[in-house]
């Protein structure tokens, strides 16, 4: 089983639904405990909204080393991803914008050549992850043609437009921050915190979602669910 809490009894007073599937775990540490050194971890967030701080902190606590981090930004100040970088646990960052005001930790590591950077345009990062979700083994995009980010990539003219070949991006684990999840891993988000969550959830072998609240089955309307539970393996409350 990809989730490790099958059959755990969940409080089902409200709707009286008992399920043998229960993806709820009691702590962020429990959710990350099987992540090994060298793992590729996708972390949602566009700045702070969507950033699963609890899961990142748990990864630091476990001390997983040589991580390849796929993310939007590299954190600001000394919390979240910045703390993970500062702890020296990250080997490589695949990212679109590692230079926000206050990204001091990453900048320092970059200057000292202590972290590898693969810079990917944001839309291409999204689509590479989506290809990873959807079983697409590559796609052609006009983004970055004629720039130094297209160097070394296969070019092809399609419909009269020069395009570059981009390959899918997947991870062993994904960390998602959302608003609510049920015990089957169906997820809804809040406002602009949705950002990279839905796509990263599907692009990893095991996806862990940190939420404000875990609710009973039936609480979330099937019409409103943004990320279907099939993509989420573990849920924890923040």
């Amino acid at each position, binding site marked *: 089983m990809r989730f490790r809490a099958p059959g755990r009894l969940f409080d089902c007073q409200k709707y009286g639904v008992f399920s043998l599937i229960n993806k709820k775990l009691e702590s962020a540490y429990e959710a990350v405990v099987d992540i090994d050194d060298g793992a590729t971890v996708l972390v949602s967030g566009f700045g702070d909204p969507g950033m699963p701080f609890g899961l990142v902190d748990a990864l630091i606590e476990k001390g997983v080393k040589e991580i390849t981090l796929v993310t*939007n930004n590299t954190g600001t100040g000394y919390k979240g991803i910045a703390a993970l970088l500062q702890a020296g646990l990250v080997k490589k960052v695949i990212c679109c914008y590692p230079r*926000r005001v206050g990204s001091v930790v990453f900048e320092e590591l970059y200057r000292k050549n202590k972290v590898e950077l693969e810079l990917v345009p944001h*839309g291409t990062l999204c689509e590479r992850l*989506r290809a990873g979700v959807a079983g697409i083994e590559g796609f052609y995009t006009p983004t970055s043609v004629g720039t130094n980010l297209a160097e070394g990539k296969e070019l092809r003219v399609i419909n009269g437009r020069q395009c570059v070949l981009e390959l899918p991006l997947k991870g062993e684990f994904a960390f998602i921050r959302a608003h609510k999840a049920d015990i089957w891993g169906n997820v809804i988000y809040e406002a602009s915190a949705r950002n990279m969550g839905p796509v990263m959830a599907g692009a990893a072998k095991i996806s862990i979602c940190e939420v404000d609240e875990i609710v009973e089955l039936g609480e979330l309307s099937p019409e409103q669910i943004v990320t279907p539970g099939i993509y989420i393996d573990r849920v924890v409350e923040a």
Partner: protein
Amino acid sequence: MSKLQKLSREKIAWRAAQEFKNGMVINLGVGIPTYASIFVPKDKEVIFQSENGILGVGPLAKDGEENLNLVNASQQKVTTVKGACFFDCVESFAMLRGGHIDLAMLGAFEVSQKGDLANWTLERTDVPPAVGGVMDIVAGAKEIWVLMEHCTKDGLPRLVEQCSYALTAQSVVKRIFTDLAVLRVTEEGFLVEESLADLDFDTLQAKTGAVLRKSPHWKPLEVPDIKQDNLQV
């Protein structure tokens, strides 16, 4: 001779916003373009898209009314207008790259006479490069306008024959609004449609790194005074 009164950053944005068409969906880059959202003409309604996943971005949130999960791509706490919606970044970049956004307004380091855009890296070795979504935005938005100062702080031209900085994209910029002029990128290079009345054409040419042509429909560039209390970007 009196000192030339260049347009402020706000006035550059005001001038560009007068060109909005009703119903346009617009993505605003950081810098001068952010001001354009407060100068939408009264008889026009446009929808602002933010690439982190919002259609219908409203004004900045007031103190005490911020939602920490509701920010624009520059991480400013914003509000939404009635009719707004949220989506994820995959959907957002499908909109942008797929040709569904009418207009992207961006800042730039340089624009070439062919419309090449350089606005993402100064190629310094001491700071990491950061591209964000701009390469996807310029690959797909129906029109790209650049809002910027005509020259650098050191007085070097930003409008050039060929960009010296690394390109963001080739031949994408259609219109340019600067503190001195309004220009269009044509097959024959830069066409000056408007320029400040007390700036003679030779002086404008001297501040530009490529040959300028004056439009037969040239007009003086005029922007009314902007009240400071309107400048809540």
